[in-house]
């Protein structure tokens, strides 16, 4: 009887209580993610460091320590790994240089056309965005057929409609990047277009009205108002697209299999080949760390921009 009378009315301080009086509650919420994060992210990185300084072989139980040998190999130009690795870095950079400007400019051109209301605007938006949801294998198989040397869509149009000679897109070393870049633009440009459209919807109409009073034409309005105001978006689009393009893998594997003569082999393709096909797991891990470091520079830029975005939305 006495016990019930003195029963506390405020929440009891207990490690089993699920309220703010228990200081452990926030950590309990974080626990599931923290476990997964350590097991599947932090540990693999640490394990990767260990693997890259040992000779890890799936067929061998002993893993001798080799120090930085797999890293120095990459800077010894006599080694085949160094040649192939840096060739793949150059290849990937070529792809970045070719694809990023196209992905920014085409996205902007599409967005400008859909900026103002027009018949079937939603339909056009869907058409330009929808390839982005397809998997890379569908995109690659499809575009390999479009660019097929003999009977692909483009050569069929050249032959049957314009009576032009066919072009060996898939084997001509001078234009081998063309099919891959065009497939990539078709696949992902809608995403950038949507980012531009979202940014454009935030531009105040009053700028355009003022410019119209001054007699500005459509191009002048675009050049002097839209483009400068979109600058932060353009930077963001460019940086994220550079990152995405450095991750080139599926398109070149499935369209050209890295050929002809390794001309389109991307870094990730070479790393996986070295690891999974050549069973050189330690060497491949060292490569992925070196490449990761190169990419980190670009990711750091993006990260800073995101951090800026966080502080900005906090201030609101």
């Amino acid at each position, binding site marked *: 009887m006495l016990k019930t009378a003195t029963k506390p009315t405020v929440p009891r301080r207990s490690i089993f209580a*699920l*309220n*703010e009086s228990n200081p452990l*509650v*926030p*950590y309990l*919420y*974080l626990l*599931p*993610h923290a476990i*997964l*994060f350590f*097991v*599947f*992210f932090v540990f*693999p990185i640490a*394990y*990767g460091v260990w*693997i890259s300084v040992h000779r890890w072989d799936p067929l061998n139980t002993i893993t001798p320590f080799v120090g930085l040998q797999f890293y120095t190999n990459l800077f010894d130009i006599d080694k085949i790994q160094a040649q192939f690795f840096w060739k793949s870095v150059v290849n990937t950079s070529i792809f970045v240089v070719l694809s990023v400007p196209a992905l920014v400019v085409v996205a902007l051109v599409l967005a400008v*056309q859909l900026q103002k209301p027009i*018949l079937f605007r939603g*339909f*056009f*938006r*869907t*058409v*330009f*965005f929808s390839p982005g*949801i*397809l*998997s*890379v*294998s*569908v995109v*690659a*198989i499809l575009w390999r*057929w479009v660019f097929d040397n003999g009977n692909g*869509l483009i050569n069929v149009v050249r032959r*049957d409609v314009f009576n032009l000679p066919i072009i060996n897109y898939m084997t001509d070393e001078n234009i081998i990047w063309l099919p891959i870049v065009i497939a990539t633009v*078709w696949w992902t440009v809608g995403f950038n277009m949507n*980012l531009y459209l*979202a*940014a454009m919807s935030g531009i105040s109409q009053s700028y355009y009205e003022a410019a119209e009073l001054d007699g500005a034409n459509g191009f002048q309005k675009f050049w002097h108002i839209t483009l400068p105001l979109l600058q*932060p978006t353009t930077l*963001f689009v460019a940086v994220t697209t550079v990152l995405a393009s450095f*991750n080139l*893998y*599926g398109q070149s594997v*499935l369209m050209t299999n890295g050929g002809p003569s390794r001309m389109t082999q991307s*870094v*990730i393709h070479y790393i*996986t080949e070295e*690891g*999974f096909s050549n069973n050189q797991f330690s060497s491949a891990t060292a490569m992925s*760390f070196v490449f*990761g470091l190169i*990419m*980190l520079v670009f*990711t750091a830029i993006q*990260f800073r921009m995101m951090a800026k975005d966080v502080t900005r939305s906090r201030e609101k």
Partner: protein
Amino acid sequence: MTVQAPKAAPRFKMPKETLRFVLLCIQALIFIAPLYWMLITAFKTDGDAIAQPVQWFPKNPTLENFDIILNTPDANILRWAWNSVFTSVAYTAAHLLVACLTAYPFARMQFKGKEQWFWFILASMMVPGIVILIPSYIMMIQFNWIDSYHVMIWPGVANVFGVFMMRQFFSSIPLELEEAARLDGANSLIIFFRIILPLSVPALVTLGVFSFLGAWNNYLWPQFMVHGDMLTLPVGIGNFTMRYGIEYGKLMAGATLTAIPVLIVYVFAQKYIEQGMTLTGLKE
């Protein structure tokens, strides 16, 4: 624009709007053409696919290609499709739950080490995925997870993007709602499941669609982690390229079967995908 004095009525007027519309139609055609090309090839016999002159509409439409790839003993398409559906749904559910549980204290509670832990996990987004691919593969061998559903579900749940996005959304929910519930004696879990989550449905759907599409279209990871009957649809179809080389009828039938479901899902989820792009803070 100055209004011109009406001259002799122009026989044909081409307002800017019409020109813009026609230009858009041409571009839309260019975007759709490859998909049309895929579709008609899927319904052509191998001979018709390479016939000259080209058949813009299949003369002898056939379901043969679909029949062959659906019944090839070494290409278990329906099994791959099921693997893709199951692992994508399971991953999405697990990811949503874990991301929300993690985002909640970051948005609503004060505790020691909050800032540090948040920036630590956020920094993981800076690390390119390729860095952990090979160590993870060796780990998965040691876990005995190769060729299992686990390998397609759990490692991805550690992803931090969802945490970041849900934290942004939770922060926007008014604190008063939570305090009212607390006065009524609700504990933290009740508040989380009965107040915070129901109010977050738009963000949850957006993150869900992104997670699902990401898992569904994942290519690099499953290519090395699963094989044979455990493959997912995109990798299985991708392997077709190697096997069926230039039999484009069959390749296009496979690609069509893979593409059509996501295109249908997209038409329904379109609103959320476009919403999500602004919601995720990607805007501006």
